[in-house]
């Protein structure tokens, strides 16, 4: 039987507010344990939550960016369960009335087709603390620095049909939240993580299969592996005549497999109810207008503009707008080298991206800045150097940080465009290779490449390729 995979994601994005969602404590990552836990975060008797307006603004900006309805009135609810890293014995979240309603995001698949993924809702909530178990001689410790950090949980429709689609969607959300400046997107630190709801069904069926929820996936690679493992597991069960059990599963990255955490029967009854300590959150039209006006240019709009204004392919435009910083870098280069947006794009997506990737650097950490890259591209554009020589120049720039011009001068890499100099070099090569010349003239056209190579060698690669081509053809043809 052919099976179809059905995936929905719940993405948790930590909001980049300075203070927590219901207290004034800082949210900086990596502080000493419990250094950023106030009495409110510790759930002390008598303390009360006060909503952080910046968190609301960020959630609303996300909602507007995915074309969602923003609820004029949303309600914070308590999700009740006992756990040592949940100080109050309940998590303040939104349940029946979330701040962000239905919206959608378009993803582009590898074959270039576009797909729209529905967003069911996004709600504000507080994060829990962390339980630490390692290196404590059998004891556990609690770090409440993270307790009360604002999150938005973005719930998708079950619209994805493969791990690849899920990754594309997750990356799209990742790009978006960073564009909006509402989340640093740092997956290692847990600022951006997701739960995946995965089920399979016979291809063509319109009913969903029983799903498993895989918790706490904090890298794109893990999401892909966990989903693929889970799909195979479920298909094996079904093909073996078994039934998939609705349950929560954990992905073990070391073993590359998912395992059961708790079944539906063991699931907590969270006893949600509206939090009486917080008034319903009402959002007025004026506030919406304000947030809308402050939205940056969003990735899709930017990509469309790049394709249109710079004559780029949709693919290149997509690559260049994958992050706001990369797009900014590219536009900086374009501005400095007027009239060469395609050439600039090739260099940013080619040599620059490869070098960043090789050295594991972010665009902001690049050893070659936009002004320097523009310097290099300009020298290609004005024929000072060839594209081939430019690669060597780029390597040198990357290695020691000098500008392109300095390297070209120091290494004497300036292109030879003087026809007589090129002709002289051709004459020498022809004189040294009488046999090949005779063969060529008797009809062995393939030897043209040999002469190009030899002349280039003789000029240390500096001959202008177009000129060389033309002059060589003429000379080889004979007097």
């Amino acid at each position, binding site marked *: 039987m052919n099976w179809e995979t059905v995936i929905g994601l719940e993405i948790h994005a930590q909001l980049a507010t300075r203070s927590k969602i219901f207290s004034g404590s800082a949210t900086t990552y990596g502080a000493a344990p419990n250094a950023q836990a106030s009495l409110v975060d510790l759930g002390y*008797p008598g303390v009360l939550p006060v909503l952080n307006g910046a968190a609301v603004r960020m959630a609303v900006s996300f909602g507007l960016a995915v074309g969602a309805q923003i609820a004029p009135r949303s309600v914070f609810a308590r999700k009740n369960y*006992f756990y040592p890293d949940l100080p109050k014995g309940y998590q303040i979240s939104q349940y029946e009335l979330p701040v962000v309603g239905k919206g959608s995001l378009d993803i582009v698949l590898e074959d270039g087709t576009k797909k729209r993924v529905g967003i069911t809702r996004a709600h504000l909530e507080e994060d829990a603390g962390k339980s630490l178990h390692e290196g404590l001689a059998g004891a556990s410790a*609690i770090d409440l620095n993270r307790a009360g950090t604002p999150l938005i949980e973005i719930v998708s429709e079950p619209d994805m049909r493969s791990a690849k689609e899920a990754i594309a969607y997750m990356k799209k959300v990742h790009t978006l939240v960073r564009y909006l400046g509402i989340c640093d997107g740092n997956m290692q630190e847990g600022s951006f993580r997701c739960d995946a709801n995965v089920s399979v069904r016979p291809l063509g069926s319109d009913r969903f299969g029983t799903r498993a929820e895989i918790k706490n996936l904090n890298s794109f690679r893990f999401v892909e592996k966990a989903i693929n493992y889970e799909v195979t597991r479920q298909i094996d069960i079904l093909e073996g005549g078994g039934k998939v059990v609705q349950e929560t599963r954990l992905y073990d990255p070391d073993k590359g497999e998912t395992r059961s955490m708790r079944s539906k029967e063991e699931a907590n009854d969270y006893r949600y109810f509206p939090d009486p300590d917080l008034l319903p959150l009402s959002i007025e039209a004026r506030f919406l207008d304000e947030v809308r006006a402050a939205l940056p240019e969003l990735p899709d709009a930017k990509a469309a503009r790049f394709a249109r204004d710079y004559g780029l392919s949709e693919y290149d435009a997509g690559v260049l707008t994958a992050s706001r910083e990369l797009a900014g870098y590219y536009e900086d280069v374009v501005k400095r080298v007027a009239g060469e947006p395609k050439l600039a794009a090739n260099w940013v997506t080619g040599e620059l991206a490869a070098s960043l990737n090789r050295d594991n650097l972010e665009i902001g950490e690049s050893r070659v800045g936009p002004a320097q890259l523009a310097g290099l591209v300009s020298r290609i554009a004005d024929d000072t150097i060839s594209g081939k020589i430019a690669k060597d120049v780029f390597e040198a720039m990357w290695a020691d940080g000098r500008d392109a011009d300095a390297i070209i001068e120091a290494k004497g890499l300036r292109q030879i465009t003087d026809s007589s100099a090129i002709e002289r070099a051709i004459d020498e090569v022809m004189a040294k290779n009488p046999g090949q010349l005779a063969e060529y003239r008797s009809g062995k056209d393939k030897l043209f490449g040999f002469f190009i190579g030899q002349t280039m060698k003789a000029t240390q690669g500096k001959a202008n390729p177009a000129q060389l081509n033309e002059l060589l053809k003429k000379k080889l043809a004979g007097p």
Partner: protein
Amino acid sequence: MSAAPLHSRGLAALASGLAQREFSSVELTRHLLGRLEAAQPQLNAMVSITGEAALAAAARADGAIASGRAGPLTGVPIVHKDIFCTEGVRTTCGSRMLDNFVSPYDATVVANLKAAGTVMLGKANMDEFAMGSSNETSWFGPVKNPWNTAMVPGGSSGGSAAVVAARLAPAATATDTGGSIRQPAALTGITGLKPTYGRVSRYGMIAFASSLDQAGVLAASAEDCALLLGAMAGFDPRDSTSVDQPVPDYAAALATPAKGLRIGLVKEFFDQGLDAENERQLRAAFAVYEKLGATLVDVSLPNVGLSVPTYYVVAPAECSSNLARFDGVRFGHRCDQPRDLLDLYKRSRGEGFGAEVKRRIMTGTYVLSAGYYDAYYLKAQRVRQLISADFVRAFEHVDVLAGPTSPTPAFPLGAKTSDPITMYLNDIYTIGANLAGVPALSIPCGFVHDLPVGLQLVGPHFSEAKLLAAAHAFQQETDWHARVPAVWQ
């Protein structure tokens, strides 16, 4: 006047005596501390008496008075209900769970009253986590009624009420979730005001049922209540449910006469259950108001009869969640040698909480459970809206509502402890105001079998000034509020 012993004077009189340096705050504080200590074996009204800190604060107050930096309450001793967090002082909420809890911060009410110059004498006993109507659920033992120590003082603010009734302190803070200020005020013959929900900050007041809890005051007279409320009320950015509205000068508003006041007599409050003697006293009180020029109108609150069942869904639901933080992990009682996490939770909570608290946590957990939420919690919220609407409608026709505070005078200790439902019915007349969030007060209006009974006045949102003025007018005509049990004179 100056011959009257210090403890027999009210808050306002003491404040003016201090300002005029008729006596010092240290002198006054020492006198009241002596009375508090002496009364403790008979009344058990206090959980902690903080003598040393009180005398130090009194000395500072005397300094402020001497240097002319005194406010209207500088040097006046008061008692805080042990539900308010007090920095560096044990804050137990009447529970074994918090027997060892020393708060690292002051509740806003405490901070406001500290800033106003009051001197805290100690922390008053109370029903455990404010759950009770007789002060018998306290881990620290029951409080006795100063009028008759075989009787309960009411609850949950029984300690605060007994302290004022026995004139051990001129005033006390208290809280009211379903009647916990007004019912003990009635049962001990003093004046008690539960303000509008949102009038006084809940920050630092240990939560029982967040949507109903409200801090208020207990004192001998409406005048004293006005003075204390003015110093503790006001918007608090740390409490999202506190209301940003200016605090009127309650003391100045006391002079408003009762002439022309339209008083609505709540028909439903004179049905079954109200003690006949108690009713006679109330009718006499209404006659006083008529004499003062008020008009009496019969009004109906058709849904108010559903108050008790509604309350006993909403309040336990909220308490089941509010009390989840007491898990033995970060503060409060922790069981010995827990085997594992579950054992830590179960035994710490099992040992730390008393029977009534457990009963309400279980009830609340049940009504919020999947499959029961709609039938109980949601329905109770809808009925709550109906009850609130009844009050709104009534206030279109009258200025204040009047009726009994409690169905009977104080009852004997132990009389109702085995039957929670009978105990819950004590609050039948008071709960409506909590569900609607409106202010209400209780004033003494007579005696039945030598025990005081109270008259309850309820007003629209933020009508505290009006209620206090109405109570004050009555107290200008009567002396019920000035009566003190013979042994405590």
